[in-house]
């Protein structure tokens, strides 16, 4: 790290807590559990045998840093300012959600390596501030259209973790009864739409929801999430353009983590700031530090207000970074170590916790309580998922249609 660090949150003398937590979340199964029948692009993308050890130990190092939510960071990233209209209670509650996100994600990564669930895992570590801070402010029946890396959208909006673990594990207690793709978090009762894996589909759906609210005369708003890469897709344009024409109550968020899978930003767009995309649609676009909880709060708060008061959409580019690969076993060796380190130093969590401490809202005791509660919820959620039944293939044969038709028999195949 750089010299330019501030004091550690819990005092320089203490042993770094990473080790403990690492122990708590110790691995229980061999690394290779995900291999075998399962074989997708991500396995194909895993590093060659030789470098596998290095790769995994580096991943573990990062996870240790990640879960130290009060660790050092360079002074220049110190936060200052206010969170408009945010009560102290809300600040702490939001902090707890961010910690929850972080520890949950780290935990899932380990469980995946232990072969406790199949499929793949898309880690959001590093990007938590982006979606969670926005959805935290929304009303429960407001509409969220997340993408594939939006754990935070669900957690921010208050979806209990057990539904998310059940989704990761594809169990019957997930909101879709174990049908849909792991990591694609959603819950109908919390207004979080099931993400479509296909890029930008939910951007369009959220636009439709915003239209629906307006037409039905409801005062709800919608939010849509997408990555930097997704902004190249035609549906990005069609959705934004329509929302601009009809001044729909929607907040569009681009989580610009500089990479779209392996594609660097300069091959996705010739722009410096992706918020300039909004200039094509006649509504405001802003670019902010997506790792600065305060900045995200203030920008999203204004955008939500704008939407709610009928002034129309806003596009917010949040500059952020994913610490890990596109999916969990992508070595992400297209990125330089320097780049990764530089962004890890801008970790939104210690920056926010330091600010809370500066504001006198967070001390070791409060933090301890937060971590304890969060870890307990995670444990319970993992247990919940693991004891939830696996759906039989037969259960997937229903719900193709709402109505019944004389010629249709799902088992017969037509």
């Amino acid at each position, binding site marked *: 790290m750089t010299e330019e660090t501030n004091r550690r949150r819990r005092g320089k003398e203490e042993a770094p807590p990473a080790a403990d937590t690492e122990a708590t979340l110790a691995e229980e199964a061999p690394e290779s559990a995900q291999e075998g029948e399962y074989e997708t692009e991500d396995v194909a993308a895993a590093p060659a045998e030789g470098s596998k050890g290095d790769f995994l130990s580096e991943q573990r190092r990062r996870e240790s840093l990640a879960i130290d939510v009060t660790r050092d960071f360079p002074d220049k990233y110190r936060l200052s300012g206010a969170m408009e209209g945010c009560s102290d209670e809300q600040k702490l509650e939001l902090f707890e959600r961010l910690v929850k996100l972080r520890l949950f994600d780290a935990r899932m990564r380990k469980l995946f390596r232990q072969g406790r669930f199949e499929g793949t895992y898309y880690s959001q570590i590093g990007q938590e501030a982006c979606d969670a801070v926005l959805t935290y402010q929304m009303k429960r029946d407001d*509409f969220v*259209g997340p993408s594939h890396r939006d754990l935070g959208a669900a957690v921010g909006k208050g979806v209990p973790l057990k539904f998310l673990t059940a989704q990761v594990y594809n169990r019957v207690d997930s*909101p*879709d*009864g174990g*049908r*849909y793709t792991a990591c694609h978090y959603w819950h*109908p009762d919390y207004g979080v*739409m*099931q993400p*479509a894996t*296909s890029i930008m*589909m939910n951007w*369009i*759906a*959220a*636009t*439709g*929801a*915003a*239209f*629906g*609210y*307006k*037409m*039905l005369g*409801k005062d*709800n708003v*919608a939010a849509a999430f997408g990555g930097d890469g997704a902004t190249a897709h*035609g*549906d990005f344009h*069609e*959705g934004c*353009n*329509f929302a601009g*024409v*009809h001044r729909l109550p929607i907040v569009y968020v681009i989580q610009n983590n500089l990479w779209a899978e392996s594609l660097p930003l300069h091959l996705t767009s010739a722009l410096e700031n992706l918020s300039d995309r909004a200039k094509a649609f006649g509504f405001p676009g802003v670019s902010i530090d997506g790792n600065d909880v305060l900045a995200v709060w203030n920008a999203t708060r204004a955008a939500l207000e704008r939407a709610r008061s009928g002034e129309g959409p806003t596009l917010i580019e949040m500059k952020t970074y994913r610490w890990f690969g596109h999916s969990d076993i992508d070595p992400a060796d297209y990125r330089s170590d320097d780049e990764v380190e530089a962004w890890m130093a801008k970790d939104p969590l210690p920056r926010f916790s330091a600010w809370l401490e500066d504001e006198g809202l967070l001390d070791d005791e409060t933090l301890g309580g937060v971590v304890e509660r969060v870890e307990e919820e995670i444990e319970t959620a993992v247990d919940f998922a693991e004891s939830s039944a696996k759906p039989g293939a037969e259960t997937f044969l*229903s*719900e*193709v*249609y*709402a*109505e*019944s*038709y*004389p*010629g*249709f028999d*799902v088992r017969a195949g*037509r």
Partner: protein
Amino acid sequence: MASLSYIEAINRTLHEEMARDATTFLIGEDIGIYGGVFKATRGLLQEFGPERVIDSPISESLIAGMTVGAAMVGCRPLPEIQFADFISPAFDQIVQQLARFRWRTNGTYSMPVTIRTPYGGGVGGGVFHSQSNEAWFMNVPGLVMVAPSTVRDAAGLLRAAIRSEDPVLYWEHKKLYRSIKDELPEDEEFVTAIGEAHVAREGRDVTAISFGYTHHLAMTAAERLAEDGIEVEVIDLRTLLPLDTPTIKESVAKTGKAVIVHEAPKIGGIGGEIAAVLVVGSLVLACLAVAVVGTVAWPVDGSRGGGEGGQLVQGSRRLRGGIALTFLAVAALAVPLRRRDTFDVLN
């Protein structure tokens, strides 16, 4: 009692259903101010206002895809795709999102969406205004497709589609818009059940299976053949997906012979699916003659050639004649093969 054309039946049903259900809205290109390029949506903007009748930008993917979110928050969207040829930019949203959303969410969300689109040849529309491209969607369980051939079904299937909880692609035939009329009492709410084919004419010699405009060709051919003592059973499919296989099989079990007529190129057309329905599972001796009548395998349309211009009209007339001729030939040839009694295998 008013005599209405096919397109007037569509228009009236839209008026009625939009009046009935305040959560419905129309979205499509030129459907408001202009009343639709064919005038199917005439008067709706005036009646329901710009909040519920949306003149959309040229964004077919948005038109189809926004319905998913709108349906989730309680609307009953009625998108229009201006020509079936322009449904391909919306294909992604329809097949990947709209048609599968109910299944993906384990039935949490219905998708009560009716996409109307004008299709078919015979109006000189040329390469991009003539396609009969229903077959693109046949491998998409979760989606429903209907295609009315009569004025009554234009109303009845549209009403059923709008009220259905499933996403329905409603294919309206351009050639039928103003060429057929029927009496539709004002006070009746026609509903044509989705999923049920209609035996429009009974017969024992051969079954003709078709829909939309080609249904009328089949009826004409049946009349001609009746003069020669050949009785054609004519099935109007009405619903293309899912097919009413019981009705189709029952009829062909009786006649032993089937002729399927559609406008799309034969290659990969829905005739194949129907052929499969007929022959698959017939593990015992299947004495069955099946013909599919579609267009030649060119990349245009079913009943008319490649240009909006003059010459193609003639060419298409010849080809259209060809459809009827093939039909007659197959049916006639089929007669000597009539051995119905033993053909109880198709079930």
